[in-house]
């Protein structure tokens, strides 16, 4: 029960219309008797008003409670969204903004590509060095050919020496031995030259195949790096676009939440009609009570007349609560009941 119906008037004073009380006796005993018959209605009317006011208050409390829930959820959603949008990684925290993550991702990709490119450059330098080595081995082959020619010359020279030693007879015998030894050394030198030539050919073949492998790998890596760079750029662009869109949506949600909060504020203001209505009804109830008291004092108690009180207006009551106050007892359904026939 709301206190205002039991205690003080919310308005400063209640001025009862004097004409309603003091002029009645002058109208004669018939009017007096009729007025007395209506006495029980005063308390019923008061009760109707009290209950109506209470129902309005209960409804407003319920609606306001729902608004609180809605506003709380909207506020939390806005706070979460705002937090997500403004979250910034400081390096010491696990939480990082999407922009920071995107930036880190981009920098990491650039680093990987840079390292791969560096490897390609090293490989290119290795190819150049192998080419230089190949040219050097070619020069060595040329030098070996010259050594071969020199050896051939030495052999002819040694043969001529033997011929001359034979002509010299006994005195040339020692020279003939030296000539034979020169031939023998020259032949050994030619064998070594041939082995070196073979080794150089093998080395050149090996260098050639290594060169080819390196060139193939280098070309392939170069293509891959370009492809990766292109794909990474595309992915980062897509990620940035997705993030921008998400940010736009979240910003919209933040604005919606703020707007909802404002609308709820306006609704709260509107709902305060109940407080004013409640007070005004309380004042009417107080007037009715005062009037009833004065009429009862004048014409006797309600119990003396209640049996004869006319039931005007009761037939218009449509709700259980109204009929209950009027004392009309009849079985009926309550609010929310469903009955199928």
């Amino acid at each position: 029960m709301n206190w205002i119906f039991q205690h003080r008037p919310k308005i400063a004073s209640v001025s009862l219309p004097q004409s309603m009380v003091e002029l009645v006796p002058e109208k004669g005993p018939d009017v007096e008797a009729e007025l007395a018959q209506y006495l029980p209605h005063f308390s019923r009317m008061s009760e109707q008003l009290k209950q109506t006011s209470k129902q309005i208050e209960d409804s407003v409390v319920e609606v306001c409670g729902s608004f609180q829930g809605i506003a709380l959820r909207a506020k939390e959603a806005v706070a979460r969204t705002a937090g997500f949008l403004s979250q910034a990684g400081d390096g010491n925290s696990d939480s990082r903004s999407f922009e920071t993550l995107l930036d880190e991702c981009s920098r990491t990709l650039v680093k990987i590509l840079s390292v791969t490119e560096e490897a390609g450059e090293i490989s290119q330098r290795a190819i150049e060095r192998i080419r230089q080595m190949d040219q050097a081995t070619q020069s060595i082959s040329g030098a070996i050919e010259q050594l071969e020619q020199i050896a051939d010359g030495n052999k002819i020279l040694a043969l001529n020496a033997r011929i001359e030693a034979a002509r010299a007879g006994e005195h040339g015998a020692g020279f003939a031995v030296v000539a034979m030894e020169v031939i023998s050394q020259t032949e050994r030198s030619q064998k070594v030259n041939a082995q070196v030539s073979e080794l150089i050919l093998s080395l050149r073949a090996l260098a050639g195949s290594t060169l080819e492998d390196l060139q193939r790998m280098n070309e392939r890596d170069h293509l891959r790096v370009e492809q990766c760079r292109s794909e990474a750029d595309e992915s980062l662009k897509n990620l940035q676009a997705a993030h921008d869109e998400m940010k736009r949506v979240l910003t919209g949600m933040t604005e919606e939440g703020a707007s909802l909060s404002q609308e709820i504020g306006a609704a709260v203001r509107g709902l305060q009609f109940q407080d004013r209505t409640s007070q005004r009804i309380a004042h009417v109830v107080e007037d009715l009570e005062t009037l009833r008291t004065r009429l009862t004092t004048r014409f006797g108690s309600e119990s003396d007349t209640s049996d004869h009180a006319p039931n005007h207006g009761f037939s218009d009551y449509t709700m259980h609560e109204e009929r209950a106050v009027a004392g009309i007892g009849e079985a009926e359904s309550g609010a929310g009941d469903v009955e199928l026939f």
Partner: protein
Amino acid sequence: MRKILIVDDAVSMRQMVSFTLKQGGYAVIEAEHGQDALNKLQGNPVDLVITDLNMPVMDGITLIQNVRKMPSMKSKPILMLTTEGLASKKEQGKAAGATGWIVKPFDPDKLLQTLAKVLP
């Protein structure tokens, strides 16, 4: 978080004021009349009081007079929030020690702006 005491005999009004203040980031204590408010203020001072005028047991003016006697609440802002708008009533409130007077229905934004102004 700043703490505010709401005093009103109407539960719906307490709820609406409380809702508005919580939205504004304040902590709220509720009392249903002046005496209830005084009991809740004992050993538990608040940063600001918002009170109705006409209430059972103890009205808003008497509440303010009593609150001003409490050392911890001597200089704290007290706002009247009432349907009453008579100049004479406002004078009574001012004389009792009220900081301001708001006539119902209140505007949530304006109420929060007023709090921001009167809170030190």
